[in-house]
């Protein structure tokens, strides 16, 4: 056992894995930030514009919500010319996550009472001012647990990028797996991957639960 640990967790191997982990986390962070922006826009348009743009936003959301992530990753990888596979794969994850965020935002918007709009209007706020200063801050406060949950899902979803050969955490684990032969070593590597993902996601999920518990009374 100790021998296996020594063969698996050599310094170069660990550095290699941590490099992959960094790639996963950087991709997750970029994807989350961008998809919150696009998702909010889509959610707002779907909710408040019932004509052409609203229909387009609905179409986008339904399309991405009802087809697998891996399909978009492969599609982006093979159909978009140029750029690197890492960018194309992450683009797919971003487009996909944005649709989920849009639905979360829409759920939050629906929970805001109509009177808020009327009150803001009576105080001379324009439609966009109302959204920016009154509706969105309340919406985001409500949807923080769902968004945090989506952060967890996105971190887990980056592992699909291994299917494209992108050197993120899962893929770098597979590369190390390719170098070992013993069962105990294989289990060690899978164990390591699982534990690292677990620590990251579990910590976030505890945050989600605490937030929800603390705020479920007054939001």
């Amino acid at each position, binding site marked *: 056992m100790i021998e296996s640990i020594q063969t698996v967790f050599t310094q170069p191997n660990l550095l290699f894995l941590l490099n992959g982990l960094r790639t996963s986390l950087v991709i997750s962070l970029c994807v989350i930030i961008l998809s919150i922006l696009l998702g909010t826009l889509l959610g707002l348009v779907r909710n408040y514009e019932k004509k052409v743009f609203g229909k387009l936003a609905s179409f986008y959301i339904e399309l991405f919500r009802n087809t697998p992530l891996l399909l978009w990753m492969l599609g982006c990888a093979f159909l978009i010319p140029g750029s690197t596979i890492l960018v194309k794969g992450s683009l797919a994850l971003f487009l996909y996550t944005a649709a989920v965020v849009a639905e979360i935002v829409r759920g939050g918007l629906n929970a805001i009472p109509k009177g808020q709009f009327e009150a803001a209007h009576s105080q001379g706020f324009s439609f966009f001012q109302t959204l920016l200063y009154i509706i969105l801050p309340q919406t985001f406060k409500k949807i923080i647990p*769902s968004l945090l*949950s989506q952060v967890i899902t996105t971190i887990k979803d980056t592992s699909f990028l*291994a299917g494209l050969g992108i050197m993120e955490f899962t893929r770098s684990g597979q590369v190390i797996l390719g170098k070992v032969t013993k069962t105990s070593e294989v289990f060690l590597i899978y164990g390591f991957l699982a534990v690292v993902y677990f620590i990251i996601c579990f910590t976030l999920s505890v945050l989600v639960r605490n937030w929800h518990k603390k705020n479920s009374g007054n939001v």
Partner: protein
Amino acid sequence: MKSTNPFALWRWEDLFQNFDHFGSGFLRTLQVAILALALSLVIGVIIGILSTAQNVILRSIARVYVEIFQNIPLVIQIFFMYNGLAMAGLVLSEFMIGVIGVGLYHGAYIGEVVRAGILSIPKGQQEAAYSQGFNYTQTMRYVILPQMVKSILPPLTNQAVNLIKNTSVLAIIAGADLMYAADSYASSSLNYGTSYVVAGLLYFILCFPLATFSRKYEEKLKKNDAMVVDIPEVME
């Protein structure tokens, strides 16, 4: 000279000549999804009931199960069953890995849905059932579970949609599902565009009716002021 447009007419012709490829992949995805859904419902109900039990040990078992399966990516779980278990001597077919892997994973999520459903039923119901001489199993079976089915139907249907989409993970281990069929046809014929569009359409046909039902039903419940189970931590 053939057009090089990724969606050129000849590419569509070629695809429809090879459509049985997609047909069998679609069928495989459907089979895996149905069996995995059945498995995850069974696990979900058990985990849901355990996590509302009085006994601390039973509750902890459910908690540990849910946390482990929810916080490790499905891809890792599937790879482990494919490589890890095989090396330890337990060789499962790709089909079985799909059913068990996806079933165990979504079982954790459905467990959380069921738990929230049980907790949404007022405590008085249970006390009333006990006072009428029902034991714990009977109370669950005849009083609690039937009442919560309606309120958990929307999140449950969303789980089914995600489960169908997640069966595509099988493509990574060459599981002969729809995603794999589309990908292998695409890379052998180089008709990526048409192949992915058709695969997307087939997934959409499966998922869209379910997702729409879930949304409409939830809207209906909300309109009638009925209980809706809303659980942000079960979002997968």
